[in-house]
């Protein structure tokens, strides 16, 4: 309870500081926000756009991707009057629908639609979006706390897992995504459902077997009575996370990992009815959204992407997904397409997260091998490869938020350091503590100072980066 109170105050403090930075930021480099508001509403004389709080605060929060989300919310309200263009489908309609529905529930319907859209409605949904995004972010930090306890409790004492979980939750609030979650971005919805899915998966796992003598051995199994939790709750959470942000398809690697583990231990029925079934559900949901729905919305009139069907009888199965197509066409996504000289700064912006993620995977594979985190390591490696070689690399600062491996690495390492310092200073000879201490000492033989240096560099970077990113966002400046 004390932890929750501390976490809440910490969250409120960070958000207060960030919104203060937004308020005091002097101007916007990109001046298109006023044009957006003009285009979405009938406020041609700028009377409401330029009120004190709108011009000094809310307008500054309409930068980069939030513009698309705002238009999508307004589109939800009057779909027949506002044209939705192809490239706008790259942005989550689940997120915009959610804000639209919550606003409808709180404020009730508004009679004005289309080009006569009331400017008050636009600012109303901006406020609802901000509150919802921040609440989800806060709840996600608590969910991450529980997820971390579940993840680490299999390998350490309750005290250790709790300490690591506390550090992880605090770090999450000041992680690099934080600079963007001051506006109506869709990331919070995805990382919240990713964490829910991971928690329900963890609860379904049986990682320990205790014999009559009380000795425990590590194993991999799934609890039969947890079938609904695994197949329904986990799959559904991953599907929502993936539908909201397509990159969450990587969460399917957890199912793949579980399939291999159960195959290895020859539990075929469990393999079929747990991870395989869940994986099929996730994959089907992916095909449905990215191929089926998109195909029947745009084809055959669209041409281009529509004509790339692989099988004639299943025309919606095209060579690339719709998301991939629009990303390639409008954002020049593709193998090494971003590797140009003028993008060097963007690679450098991404560098701290690239370094910490690579170090985290090495830490959990070579230094402190943890089978439990293996699928998370696979996901990290795959996603890193995609981001470095195919995508706009600087988005790593926000899109990696659904994989907390770097936060676990920092927390785990910091805990070990603290524990070593503690054991050096005290002569406490409690039996249980000694067992733990011996374990820690054995493990620490393999530690190197480079990890500590990287963590120190990363934390210093965060200390400067989060406020700077907040100002960049409020000033409509890169990186996006």
């Amino acid at each position: 309870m004390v932890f929750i109170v501390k976490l809440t105050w910490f969250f409120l403090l960070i958000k207060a500081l960030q919104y203060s930075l937004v308020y005091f930021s002097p101007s916007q480099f990109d001046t298109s926000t006023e044009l957006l508001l003009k285009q979405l509403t009938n406020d041609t004389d700028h009377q409401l756009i330029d009120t004190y709080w709108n011009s000094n605060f809310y307008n500054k929060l309409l930068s980069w991707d939030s513009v698309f989300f705002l238009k999508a919310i307004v589109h939800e309200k009057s779909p027949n009057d506002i044209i939705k263009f192809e490239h706008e489908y790259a942005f989550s309609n689940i997120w915009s629908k959610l804000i639209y529905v919550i606003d409808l529930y709180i404020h009730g319907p508004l009679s004005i639609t289309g080009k006569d859209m009331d400017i008050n409605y636009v600012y109303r949904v901006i406020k609802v979006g901000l509150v919802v995004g921040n609440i989800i972010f806060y709840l996600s930090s608590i969910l991450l706390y529980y997820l971390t306890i579940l993840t680490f409790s299999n390998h350490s004492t309750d005290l250790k897992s709790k300490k690591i979980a506390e550090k992880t939750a605090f770090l999450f609030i000041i992680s690099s995504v934080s600079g963007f979650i001051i506006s109506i971005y869709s990331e919070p919805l995805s990382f919240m459902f990713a964490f829910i899915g991971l928690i329900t998966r963890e609860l379904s796992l049986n990682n320990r077997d205790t014999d009559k003598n009380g000795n425990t051995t590590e194993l991999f199994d799934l609890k039969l009575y947890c079938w609904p939790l695994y197949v329904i709750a986990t799959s559904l959470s991953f599907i929502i996370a993936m539908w909201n942000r397509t990159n969450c398809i990587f969460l399917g690697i957890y199912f793949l990992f579980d399939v291999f583990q159960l195959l290895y231990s020859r539990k075929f029925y469990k393999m079929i009815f747990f991870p395989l079934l869940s994986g099929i559900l996730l994959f089907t949901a992916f095909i449905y959204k990215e191929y089926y729905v998109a195909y029947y919305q745009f084809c055959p009139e669209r041409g281009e992407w529509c004509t790339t069907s692989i099988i004639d009888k299943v025309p919606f199965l095209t060579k690339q997904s719709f998301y991939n197509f629009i990303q390639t066409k409008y954002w020049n996504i593709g193998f090494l397409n971003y590797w140009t000289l003028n993008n060097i700064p963007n690679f450098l912006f991404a560098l701290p997260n690239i370094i910490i993620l690579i170090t985290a995977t090495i830490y959990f594979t070579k230094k402190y091998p943890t089978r439990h985190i293996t699928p998370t390591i696979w996901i990290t490696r795959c996603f890193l490869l995609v981001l470095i070689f195919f995508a706009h690399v600087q988005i790593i600062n926000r899109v990696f938020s659904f994989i907390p491996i770097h936060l676990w690495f920092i927390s785990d390492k910091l805990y070990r350091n603290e524990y070593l310092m503690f054991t050096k200073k005290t002569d406490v000879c409690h039996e249980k503590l000694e067992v733990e201490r011996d374990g820690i000492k054995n493990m620490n033989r393999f530690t190197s100072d480079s990890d500590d240096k990287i963590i120190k560099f990363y934390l210093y970077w965060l200390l400067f980066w989060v406020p700077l990113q907040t100002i960049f966002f409020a000033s409509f400046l890169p990186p996006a």
Partner: protein
Amino acid sequence: MLSYTYFALWVWCLHIVAGNTETFLVSLPADYPIFKYVGDVGAHDYHVLSLNNTNNDKITINPIVSARTVTHYIELQSLKKFESYMVKTCWSAVSPISIHNMDTMIVPPLQDFMGTTSEHPRFFIAFDITQDSYPTIDMLESLINVSVTNVKLGIPVDLYSTIIYILFTCGFVFALERYLNLVARITTI
């Protein structure tokens, strides 16, 4: 040191900013004559940005963009020789247009341009606007902000306040870290 490196990178990044903003630097040629803008060229269809007694100016244009590429011209007035200016076009990301081929052109004295003539040379910026999404609209209304800003020490003057704000914030964070040991506190949570 870290923050300064990042700041330098960010300033570099401004010149390559992508998305719904295009920028380019312009300056008057060395042999461009000095004269006072007084003349009225008569009714004209192009827009004018003037830096008379100011170091930045902005206008909102409302071009109708069809499926074909449209070239747009804006005259820049009262620019000074040996000075650099940043021309910036901004449009909302929800407007499915793209702006490219940004360039400058000089219309010589007494030459007809879009039905107008002037006894002085005229300095124009030109850029192409095309629709850039699906579905394509026959007559797409779009809004574009075009601005011209004086560049001093390699930085557009309208960014000075933001840069000072960023430096102040960095200094504040640095001072906080120095006196409150923030990173050390984070590590011992």
